[in-house]
């Protein structure tokens, strides 16, 4: 569905590259996660793939089209949700979707259904200019589904939303991708990535560090952790110990022998912890 070979991109004429010689493929029906801290080059990559930024260097084909040439009709099968919401503030929520729907040459979804889906029911006749940031973001997200895209670009779809709404958006994405939509998802939220993505790419400073499935990553990098709570001098103490670490293993035995253990269970490393381990950097 997407094939990227040796893609580089620079804003301005300086040597500093926002994206450095990256290559990856996204299979039909796959949900591909692009993970990295802000400024890593995720949005830049999405911008090039959606044709909003000019291809400078590399070979990119999206949905069967070579993107160095203009094919407006290819957008009939593509949906794009932007990191920064961008809806007409002088149009109502419904009018925004109605106008956008008309721009496609393929059957489109009912605006009211989408408004309902993203929890904006009752606000459909309010001008989008009066919306909160989160509401605009949801409208932008809803708009990206209007043409039933086969390929769906999602730039930070849940960032900045409150947890309940983020969970709702996540469920919508899950439902669509399960039904076969190919998705290119950009995020710095590892929980979202873990739950939605078939494969993830770690990107940092414009470079892809690794590409793998979340489960394989956990097998490779995830140290098994043991969390023990025990009583010491009438106080509850909690310790997290690695089963892969020699000293920690001895400590586990020590605790079990010396104290009254209350709980003890193992825990998988999160994608976030793996990211930190691989890149040496956090995700903020």
């Amino acid at each position, binding site marked *: 569905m997407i094939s990227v070979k040796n893609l580089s991109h620079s804003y301005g004429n300086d040597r500093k590259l926002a994206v450095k010689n990256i290559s990856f493929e996204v299979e039909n029906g796959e949900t591909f996660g692009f993970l990295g801290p802000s400024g890593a080059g995720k949005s830049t990559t999405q911008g090039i793939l959606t044709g909003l930024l000019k291809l400078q260097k590399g070979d990119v084909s999206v949905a069967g089209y070579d993107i160095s040439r203009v094919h407006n009709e290819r957008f009939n099968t593509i949906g794009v949700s932007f990191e*920064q919401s961008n809806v007409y503030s002088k149009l109502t929520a419904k009018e925004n979707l109605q106008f956008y729907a008309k721009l496609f040459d393929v059957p489109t979804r009912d605006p009211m259904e989408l408004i309902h889906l993203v929890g904006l029911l009752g606000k459909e006749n309010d001008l989008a200019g009066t919306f909160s940031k989160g509401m605009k973001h949801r409208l932008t997200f809803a708009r990206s589904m209007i043409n039933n895209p086969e390929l769906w670009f999602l730039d930070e779809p849940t960032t900045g939303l409150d947890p309940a709404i983020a969970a709702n958006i996540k469920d919508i994405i899950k439902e669509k991708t399960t039904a076969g939509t190919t998705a290119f998802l950009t995020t710095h939220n590892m929980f979202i990535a873990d739950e939605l993505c078939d494969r993830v790419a770690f990107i940092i400073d414009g470079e892809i560090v690794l590409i793998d499935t979340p489960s394989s990553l956990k097998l490779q990098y995830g140290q098994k952790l043991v969390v023990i709570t025990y009583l010491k001098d009438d106080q509850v103490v909690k310790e997290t110990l690695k089963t892969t670490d020699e000293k920690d293993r001895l400590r586990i035995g020590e605790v079990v022998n010396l104290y009254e253990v209350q709980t003890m269970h193992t825990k998988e490393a999160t994608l976030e912890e793996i990211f930190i381990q691989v890149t040496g950097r956090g995700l903020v």
Partner: protein
Amino acid sequence: MKNILKIFMRDLKTARRDSMALIIIIMPIVLAIGITLFTPGLADTTVNLALLKNDDPAHIQYMENFAKVELFDTRQDAIARVQKRDDVAAVIRKDKSYEIILQGNEPNMVENYAASLSALYETGQTIEASNVTLYSFGQSTSPIKTMLVNMLISMTIMLAGMLIAISIVGEKADNTINAVNVTPVSQTEFVLGKTLLGGFIALVSIIIALLITGYDDINWLMILLVGVSSMALSLIIGFLMGLMSDDVIEAATNVKMIMLPVAGSILGYELLAANWQWTMYWSPFYWAYKANQLVLSKTADWPSVLLSTGMVLLLTLLVYFAAKPKIRKGLS
């Protein structure tokens, strides 16, 4: 074409909700009404005269050729008529000549008209002999009014450009150009949709303004042609202003800058001697003004209208090609 119309319809919808855009749409019409009220009418060139029934029948007949004549029994009755609200001049025999009685608040034209007619009558001009002079007096367009209406047209074109600018500034503020760029609508269609907004509103405003001000017997085909070149002008002004500005206030400031060459072109046309007119040939506004002038004063022939509008289009095209990379870049 379908996509162009969709962009146009959305812009129109938004313009209806924008107070500034509404003012821009309504302004030319208000000004046209103003011009009609405060300059001597074109359609209404008939002057009302009050004469006495016992006047020389030859005089009455002569006056009836050029004015709407009302007859009264006495001088008092005629004066009473003059003092009513509308503009009537009484022309009453006094000794061997005539005196003209006015209320005092009539337009100068009424006074001049009555005086000139009387003078012509006294010097014994017959209709036949004075045909040329009198015909032109009664039927030609008022130069001041034509100038004002022409200025109004120039302004309407600029305001229409302003509409495009407002629309683009809005798209920039909402960052919606990106959203349209990931639909099957091409950038060219997007640009043409906005052009249609400016051009359509400019054309409609100009037509309404011409009808209101009474220029309904001009050559409409010519006006349409001038309208097309006006559309090109609105486009270039609008897109440049829109892309140069980040908000409506800034766009309005940029309009003022464009006012300069427009005002300069109009002044140049009106004030420069014929052998200096060439100094204005660089300005598309000059040619647009000139083309309109020819059409409005009904002195236009096709070659000169084609030349003027051709020059407008040519110069606009030059500006367009110079600005094209900037426009393309600004839209992506």
